[in-house]
């Protein structure tokens, strides 16, 4: 039947005469169906109602029981009978109109004069506030908190008490309801009937849109959904059996990107938390050109990482390593001396393949990892029946000693460890082919830590055990740690693979699998490259989108200006800061770099290289503590960043735990927001108006008091909220930068209660802290303990509300902050 919807136009034409009949009958059918549905609806409502009635009866009887039981329990206590007493002895009685006197039109109300009134003593009230949530860190506004496009209810300004519903500007009405049309069950029925009985030609659709609403495309789409559903229900039993096996898949079978999906989407790489409320989810992933390499500390170099460490097996041969003499090495020396036939092969491997310019993913060109491979060639008999050899430490010597004289076969146990020497070794990949060949035969069986065995045949069995996820984790590990199986196993594959397995995979598996000496890394690179190419592209495209949005906002805010009243930056600068968004330029920022175009510096979160010309390079201040404009960070309105600035660092305090760490000699004094070195702020009744913020301990001039936190909202949103707040005469908006306004009305901290004064003792300053703009409140002068804090909200000349515009001197010096409330019922 559905296919009739695509009937050719001429067939419709031929039906032209019937058209009227057809639509009439359709309308008749629709109306009929509609009536049926409505009747059903009324029935169903009645049914629910009846059900509710039954429930209610039970419930009410329970309540009644409670109410009657209450009077019984009252008989025991002697006190508190006043109400009962009054019932028998009321203060006064007001007679009613006698029922017999008929319908009186004129009722004379009697004044109630009560002789005795109990007085309710004054209760001290607290200044008004709106319930708010404490924030120790700014948050971006959640979508559903927007007031844009919502109807707002106000009190009538002209004295009368009642509230009005206002859509206070035409833009609200223009706000399109982008909601997808939902079809009710009844509508489903009508649509289904129409499509089944009449087909979905234009005429039918016309009538349907008239009756059901929605656009024709929506209806068509929905009809398809219905058809699908219909088919589904008929074929349901089949599907059920098919679906059942689907749920139980294990994570390990997924690819790394799939497994990391939630990480990529939810983890904030700037705040290092999941579900960051400041930067949001699904951030653009910026891949840094330069990756920090893991510098393997000495602890990882010599000692086995555990029972299953590859060093344990092969450590015996490790002679090239270090000067410290440990028993293993002694025995090794012994072996080589006694055995005579063992040889040590040094191999250096270079990871220079990584520098391939297409592979932007990672291990940087500057890092040359030199692998030292010391292979002890042990004696092995060609005898294939003797494939296993026990190599526990004490026996190793004896084995070697025994085998030495007879030795004609060569077995290799390879030993890798990574040393990150920074000197490039261009010698290339010095791989001994013969060694490699024999290496193929050498297997490690790691079942028993004490009985390490060399197994010739297990290799091919081992490899299939590597699941795709493990392989990807492994290659990530190579990327992060280099060829250090200890670290890879410990950090990336704990519980999945042992160090030894990783090592053997690294050594033999990967190489053998790819059948060539150079294939190992290039293969890895190739894979990584693929992995990275795709996100790279999407990153870029997403980036462009983001940039477009940002700019639009910027312009719109510019064009609209700031008509509403809110607190502005107090440092006097009129141009607002520009929101920083990390760029993904690789490897260098060009002219199209969004940072460059927005006029922000590149930061450590950008993808570009450290040598990017647009990067803010931090300061080199030695002893100035970065507290003056001599410090480039301070001068630029930024806090120092221990990652960027040369001498700004964080120590673990000086033992005075709990107290904010004192700024010792030479310690940077420009990281106070970052380190939250704030003062204790107290909330109390202001001496001026409403609530006020007070200081617990005395501070010196320019000391940091705390952060003014709040919701980050767009300028558009702020315009809207500003109007609302103006009506309530209380605003907590704070201009942050070109993109955001801080709103502490609903979420903030105690500093939001600091009042305005034209002669303040504090000042607010927008600082760039780790790429984010934050508002710090600083002491403008020395402030004594428990003094109230004021700062200048910096209203523009025409922005100040009336109460803030008041001429000086009407009420002390300062015009108080808006804490008054409009009275509702007066």
């Amino acid at each position, binding site marked *: 039947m559905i296919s009739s919807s695509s009937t050719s136009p001429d067939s419709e034409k031929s039906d032209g005469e019937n058209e009227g009949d057809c639509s009439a009958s359709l309308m008749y059918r629709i109306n009929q169906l509609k009536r049926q549905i409505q009747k059903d609806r009324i029935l169903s409502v009645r049914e629910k109602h009846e059900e509710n009635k039954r429930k209610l009866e039970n419930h009410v009887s329970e309540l009644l029981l409670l109410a009657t039981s209450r009077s019984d329990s*009252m008989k025991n206590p002697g006190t508190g009978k006043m109400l009962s007493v009054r019932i028998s002895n009321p203060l006064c009685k007001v007679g009613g109109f006698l029922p017999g006197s008929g319908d009186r039109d004129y009722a004379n109300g009697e*004044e109630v004069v009560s002789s005795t009134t109990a007085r*309710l003593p004054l209760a001290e009230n607290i200044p*008004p506030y*709106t319930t708010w949530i404490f924030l120790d860190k700014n948050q971006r506004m959640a979508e559903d908190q927007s007031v844009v496009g919502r109807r*707002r209810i106000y009190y009538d300004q002209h004295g009368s008490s009642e*509230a009005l519903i206002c859509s206070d500007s035409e833009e609200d009405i223009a706000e399109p309801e982008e909601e997808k049309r939902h079809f009710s069950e*009844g509508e489903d029925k*009508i649509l289904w009937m129409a499509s089944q009985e009449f087909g979905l030609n234009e005429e039918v659709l016309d009538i349907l849109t008239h009756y059901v609403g929605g656009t024709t495309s929506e209806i068509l789409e929905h009809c398809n959904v219905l058809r699908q559903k219909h088919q589904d229900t008929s074929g349901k039993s089949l599907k059920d059996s098919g679906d059942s096996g689907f749920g139980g898949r294990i994570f390990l079978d997924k690819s790394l990107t799939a497994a990391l999906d939630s990480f990529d989407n939810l983890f904030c790489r700037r705040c290092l938390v999941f579900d960051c409320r400041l930067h949001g989810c699904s951030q653009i992933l910026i891949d840094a050109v330069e990756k920090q390499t893991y510098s393997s500390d000495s602890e990882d170099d010599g000692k086995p990482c555990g029972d299953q460490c590859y060093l344990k097996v092969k450590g015996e041969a490790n002679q090239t390593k270090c000067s410290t003499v440990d028993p293993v090495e002694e025995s090794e020396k012994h072996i080589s001396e006694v055995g005579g036939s063992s040889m040590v092969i040094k191999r250096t491997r270079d990871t220079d393949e990584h520098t391939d310019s297409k592979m932007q993913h990672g291990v940087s060109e500057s890092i040359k990892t030199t692998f030292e491979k010391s292979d002890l060639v042990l004696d092995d008999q060609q005898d294939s029946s003797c494939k296993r050899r026990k190599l526990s430490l004490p026996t190793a010597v004896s084995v070697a000693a025994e085998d030495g004289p007879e030795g004609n076969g060569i077995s290799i146990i390879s030993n890798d460890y990574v040393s990150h020497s920074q000197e490039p070794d261009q010698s290339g990949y010095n791989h001994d082919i013969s060694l490699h060949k024999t290496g193929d035969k050498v297997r490690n069986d790691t079942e028993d830590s004490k009985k390490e065995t060399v197994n010739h045949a297990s290799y091919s069995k081992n490899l299939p055990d590597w699941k795709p996820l493990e392989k990807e984790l492994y290659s990530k590990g190579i990327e992060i740690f280099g060829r250090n199986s200890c670290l890879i196993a410990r950090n990336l594959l704990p519980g999945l693979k042992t160090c030894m397995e990783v090592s053997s995979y690294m050594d033999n598996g990967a190489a053998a699998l790819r059948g060539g000496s150079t294939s190992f890394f290039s293969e890895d690179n190739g894979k990584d490259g693929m992995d990275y190419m795709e996100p790279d592209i999407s990153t870029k495209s997403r980036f462009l989108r983001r940039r477009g949005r940002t700019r639009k906002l910027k312009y719109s805010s510019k064009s609209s200006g700031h008509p509403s009243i809110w607190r502005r930056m107090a440092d006097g600068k009129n141009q607002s800061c520009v929101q920083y968004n990390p760029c993904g330029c690789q490897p260098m920022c060009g002219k199209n770099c969004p940072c460059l175009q927005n006029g922000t510096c590149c930061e450590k979160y950008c993808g570009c290289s450290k040598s990017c010309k647009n990067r803010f390079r931090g300061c080199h201040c030695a002893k100035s503590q970065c507290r003056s404009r001599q410090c480039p960070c301070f001068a630029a309105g930024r806090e120092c960043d221990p990652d960027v600035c040369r001498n700004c660092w964080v120590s673990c305090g000086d033992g005075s735990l709990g107290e904010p760490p004192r700024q010792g000699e030479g310690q940077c004094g420009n990281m106070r927001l970052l380190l939250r070195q704030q003062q204790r702020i107290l909330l109390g009744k202001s001496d001026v108006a409403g609530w006020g913020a007070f200081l617990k301990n005395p501070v010196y001039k320019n000391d940091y008091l705390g952060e003014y936190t709040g919701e980050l909202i767009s300028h558009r949103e702020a315009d809207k909220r500003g109007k609302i707040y103006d009506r309530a005469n209380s605003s907590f908006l704070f201009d942050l930068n070109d993109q955001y306004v801080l709103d502490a009305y609903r979420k903030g901290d105690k500093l939001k209660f600091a009042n305005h004064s034209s002669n303040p003792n504090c000042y607010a300053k927008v600082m760039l802290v780790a790429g984010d703009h934050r508002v710090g409140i600083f002491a403008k002068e020395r402030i004594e303990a428990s003094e109230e804090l004021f700062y200048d909200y910096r209203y523009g000349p025409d922005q100040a509300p009336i109460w803030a515009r008041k001429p000086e001197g009407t009420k002390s010096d300062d015009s108080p902050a808006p804490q008054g409330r409009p009275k509702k019922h007066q």
Partner: protein
Amino acid sequence: MAAKVPVGCEPVVGSLTPSKKKEYRVTNRLQEGKRPLYAVVFNFIDSRYFNVFATVGGNRVTVYQCLEGGVIAVLQSYIDEDKDESFYTVSWACNLDGSPFLVAGGINGVLRVIDSGSEKLHQSFVGHGDSINEVRTQPLKPSLVVSASKDESVRLWNVHTGICIMIFAGAGGHRNEVLSVDFHPSDIHRIASCGMDNTVKIWSTKEFWSYVEQSFTWMDLPSKFPTKYVQFPSVDNEILLWEPKMKENSPGEGTVDILQKYPVPECDIWFIKFSCDFHYKTAAIGNREGKIFVWELLTSPPTLIARLSHVQSKLPIRQTAMSFDGSTILSCCEDGTIWRWDVVATNSATS
């Protein structure tokens, strides 16, 4: 916005033609001061006081009793020493040992808990940041009261120990004044609140019920109680019977099925509250022009029992109160009058 109700989801709308099943006549009218009366409420907590009611207006709280023959007795009267106080709401509650309490709140934002058993102020609850628009008592545990405030929060209190048990607010909470709040009649864990942000929120306290239990045994200072800050959402989604508070129902987010509508003409102002009798059989609501509409609740479609009007009743009726059996309806008016309507036992034959 012409939000069209989809086919099959239409509410059943009651007709405005009264069924005249019952008729009510004015039997008394009291003038209580000159200030508007905002609330009138019968005591349904304690069966001994089923005919006792309380009113608030201005800085006064008054307790009355309905007697036979339209007689109203004045039992108690309380005056807040703060002349600027204007009580908006009052609710009956009771102590653990059964002492009847009155809980009133208003523009000052302080909840006054009056022990009417001893005619003394029992406690004052300070905490709301702005005026209190509604106070309601949990009928199953009448020591628990819930208050709705202009500060956009709802608070749950224990009048026995004076503890603020929970605050319902936060990111998903109301975004404008909370106008009214009430407990679910049978589910002790559920609270519904409505606000000037055009939403109705249904809160569940199930998860935090231990706080409620703790509040009864708390021996330390009430201020030291770890008040639970409940943030939205803690919701259940289905409402079976959607009672009208305003002429126009404004369903909030979530899926709400408006089942029935009880139209009330000329009821387009805020703060008009309806009332039910003890059995939830009938509801009465006043309007802006001083008329009262009495709806039968247990029928579908809804039937209007009566429309009460009087030539002298022209001012907005803020709240009505129905007596235990629905035979008496009280209404309080803007001009400080209390009207008593009694059912006239005549038209039983017409049914």
